[in-house]
């Protein structure tokens, strides 16, 4: 059964120190992989130097967490945010934290809020910015639209609407 050569097991608490040691020795972070299995997770960090690979393996319980290695490898923030979102891995001390929403959800708030004269997007109406992602969370609850995607014409007032 083939297994990864040059793969060292580490505990989560020692991960940043190990990464710092590899960085000092000229190893480049290739990426990280998270393998969820029933009741546990395996997180692998892959490094390269002179076309040779080295791996760090962290075994975690299902609710275990790892610290971010972004302080050592600044480019790690994308893969860490991805593992957080897609594999549900808890990562602490993220320098750039997308809040578990690296990949925006476009099935969400495409609705409109209407006032007397105009329709504004549901995000804008909730007072949120675009970087709050497309299913914004307010008070721990996802804001999803109840209205349709096509803005309806506002009702005319008794005096009628003027164009000026």
């Amino acid at each position, binding site marked *: *059964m*083939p*297994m*990864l050569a040059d793969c060292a097991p580490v505990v989560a608490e020692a991960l940043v120190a190990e990464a710092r040691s590899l960085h000092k020795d000229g190893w*480049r*972070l*290739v*990426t990280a*992989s998270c*393998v*969820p*299995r029933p009741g546990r997770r*395996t997180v*692998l960090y*892959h490094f*390269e130097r002179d*076309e040779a*690979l080295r791996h760090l393996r962290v075994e975690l319980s299902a609710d275990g967490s790892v610290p971010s290695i972004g302080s050592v*490898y*600044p*480019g790690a*923030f*994308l*893969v860490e945010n991805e593992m957080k979102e*897609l594999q549900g891995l808890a990562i602490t001390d993220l320098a*750039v934290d997308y809040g578990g*929403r*690296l*990949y*925006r*959800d*476009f099935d969400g708030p495409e609705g409109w809020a209407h006032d007397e004269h105009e329709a504004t997007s549901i995000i804008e109406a909730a007072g949120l*910015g*675009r*970087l709050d992602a*497309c299913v914004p969370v307010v008070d721990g609850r996802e804001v999803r639209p109840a209205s349709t995607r096509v803005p309806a014409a506002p009702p005319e007032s008794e005096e009628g609407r003027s164009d000026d």
Partner: protein
Amino acid sequence: MTDLLTPSRTVVPFGPQHPVLAEPIQIELTLADEVVVDAVPGLGYVHRGIEAETERRPYDEDLPLLERVCGICSVAHAVAYAQAVEALAEVEVPRRARLLRLFWFELTRIHSHLLWLGLAGDAIGFEALFQSCWRVREDVLDLFTMTAGNRVILGVTALGGVRRDIPDGLIPRIVAGLNKVERGIGQLAPFVLGNEAVARRLAGVGVVPGPVARDLGLVGPTVRASGVAVDVRTSGYGAYDELPIEPVVETAGDALARTLVRWREVGDSLRLCRESLDRLSGLRGPLRTRVPPVLHGEATSRVEAPRGELFYYIAADGEPHPTRVRVRTPTFANLPAVIHMLPGTQMAGVPVALLSIDPCLSCTER
């Protein structure tokens, strides 16, 4: 009273629809007047969940799925995945199949670089360069059609080898096609090398110094343009052990250097295509080795895709489908460069700087 001496800060959502950006990404740019002070990439416009889907299918059915991660470098994804599965199965790929893979792989690099150069021409307002590059690229796509029957997603790679062969009788026509591509590229040269319009728009834009590029883990032409000589092909995977290459390196680290690296790599790829055809001529042997349907263990695979290192990791727990397939694409590795290169850039330079890393969001989001 308004403070006229302090630049105002404005947040500009750059993309996902933008006239010169063919990729669905949004960069949240914070500007102080016209100068970028912060840039945060926003993803999610083409995320398809392909990695998760591979965990439900047999190994051989994952291959055509992963080929569709990206239309431009489909051969790279197919070969990288196949190599990882072959490592898991501990089988050796026949020499003829390795040479055929190399031929289609390098042809892919030529068409990818020409496609990018055309888009770069379009971005800098050089429409003639755009049209000329894509005309030459059509000749490369004709070679794909001639040898594989498809223009973009070739479907030639199989687990343990290749699905299609190139008969000896076809080789003279392929060589004639390669000569035509080379002539076309030769005609393009004055519009790229030493052209003042190109140099003025690309030189000094999106600079990433070598140590920063290495620290951020950048790959492919993006890191080689910063003076770092890394190229996965030098590890000798596939048929690169008998057809070695020297990494193409530039040192300026700007958009112009990235253009020159890709330009010179096209010439290298033409040479590799010809040399692989020379070796295939008269070579006899099987096209593939059988790969068992149930696998156990872990394996990684790396190939040098047109945009840089493409990495696959597979975990298998003795079932007829993988437990986990991890795909790290070149653009995923190169996106952190955006955060470094954009601050300090004029707003007008952002499209060119971003385009210079040859971003592929279809790859990145999978």
